[in-house]
């Protein structure tokens, strides 16, 4: 058992950066596919570019986890709660990888590359084809809604720990500011 109380600053920074990016991307994604407004053309380009950033960020976070000590869950949690906490965490990581990757593949299946801020393009991984496009396009939507659902669970659980149980879980991911006396 380790006795660290909080995540290291690197993990906190990347967690909150991913949170902001992913929630913005989810809102942008569901809006832009309906919009006929002029901004949606730029929105799709930004969505691709930021999607690549999210994918890089998730990979760096996973790598980072190999090198850091993460705080243990409170010992008074039930086995069921332990399992739920671990399972949602693993599911979130899987979805955070599947979301940008399915977006990348759906672009390729439509015969188009993913362009990153107009600077460079990602390699084409699959051949163009309607069936493949249908698969990756629907997958992208299902993964997006699933990730949103898991994020809602994650935030609910975090607030439950922080406001109701008032245990060590929420503070372990918050930045500590020096209290003024």
């Amino acid at each position, binding site marked *: 058992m380790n006795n660290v109380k909080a995540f290291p600053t690197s993990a906190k920074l990347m967690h909150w950066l991913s949170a902001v990016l992913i929630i913005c991307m*989810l*809102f942008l994604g*569901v*809006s*832009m*596919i*309906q*919009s*006929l*407004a*002029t*901004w*949606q*053309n730029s929105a*799709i380009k930004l969505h691709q570019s930021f999607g690549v950033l999210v994918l890089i960020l998730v990979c760096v976070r996973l790598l980072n986890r190999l090198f850091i000590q993460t705080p243990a869950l409170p010992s008074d949690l039930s086995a069921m709660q332990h399992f739920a906490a671990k399972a949602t965490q693993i599911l979130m990581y899987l979805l955070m990888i599947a979301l940008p990757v399915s977006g990348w593949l759906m672009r390729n299946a*439509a*015969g*188009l*590359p993913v362009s990153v801020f107009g600077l460079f*393009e990602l390699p084409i991984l699959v051949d*163009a*084809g*309607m*069936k493949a*496009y*249908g*698969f990756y*396009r*629907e997958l992208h939507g299902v993964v997006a809604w699933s990730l*949103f659902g898991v994020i*809602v669970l994650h*935030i*609910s659980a975090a*607030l*439950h720990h922080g*406001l*109701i149980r008032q245990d060590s879980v929420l503070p372990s991911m918050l930045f500590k500011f020096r209290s003024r006396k």
Partner: protein
Amino acid sequence: MSNTTDKSGSMKKRYAVIFLLIAALVFGFLYAAGLFGGHGTTAQQFVNLQENNKPQFSFRRAHAKGVCLAGEFVSSGALAPYSTSEFFQEGSQPFVGRFSIAGGNPLAPDLAAPVRSLALSFASDSGQRWRTAMNTPPVMAVRTPEEFYQQIQVLTPDPATGKPDGEKIKAFFAAHPETAAFTQWKQNYTPTTSFATEQYHSINAFYLINGKGQRQAVRWAAVPQASAQPMATDISASDRDALQLELAQRLDGDTVRFALMVTLADASDDENNPTIAWPAERTSINAGTLVINAVQPQQGGACDGINFDPLVLPAGMEATADPILNARGSAYAESYRRRAREVLLEQNAAGAKQ
């Protein structure tokens, strides 16, 4: 007051805070996703209207009937001073194309369609992409996607009579004076007996960007090199596929050619308004020749899986802020998504039966 009621009161407040935060997040997301409506005309509504309750399985929702083409663009290089795009440097680039007729019915009679189209898709070896979908009218009737939606609505046949309501059409055009250039074109336009003898227009304007970063607004047209003539005697004008048969005959041992004429806007032209024709005295540059050398049925053809989204542009070209042009992206994407989903489900169902 006892300590316990104080504590339970504060707990209730804490639960309320959690509930409100989560509710705001969930409702915000559902609102953004359009579950409560209220975003004006959407891409989904547009494609629903085009389907008109009769979605044609796996076919395009607009311009459902067409044929695939193979050919090449032989660029003259004359546009090179205006755009860095490799497609406009001297040389040739292959394309996959499609001739089509307007409407959502893949079995419609060719000669009855009011509008014909030529779409092209380029993919260079260096990874550049350019797609364009050109139509016979040189201008749009209206300026915005909302007005275009209303225009299609009034032109859609009334389910009771099977015909569009003439009074509603008159009222719509009267209420939209910007339709004048479109109406004038329609009055003077006589459809020819061939896809190869029509002129196809970009309608919307685009920017060409040169090496110095200068932008030039342009529109382009594919101008036929063959002249219109009476229909070949062995093709009946009542044949549903008259245009496709004529094209196959024409391409038997020959090519079909169009000059790609690119018109430069001047300072007085509004590149964001697709309802106004630019004056004939504007400079036009012959960018090269589109040479079509083969035709192929669209089912299983090379063009079938291509979404001819005119916002797919190479380096050296950019979209203008024309509201109709920018709306085409998400409307085309929604049509493409529905078709692709149908292809996916159909093939899985076919696989399960075996």
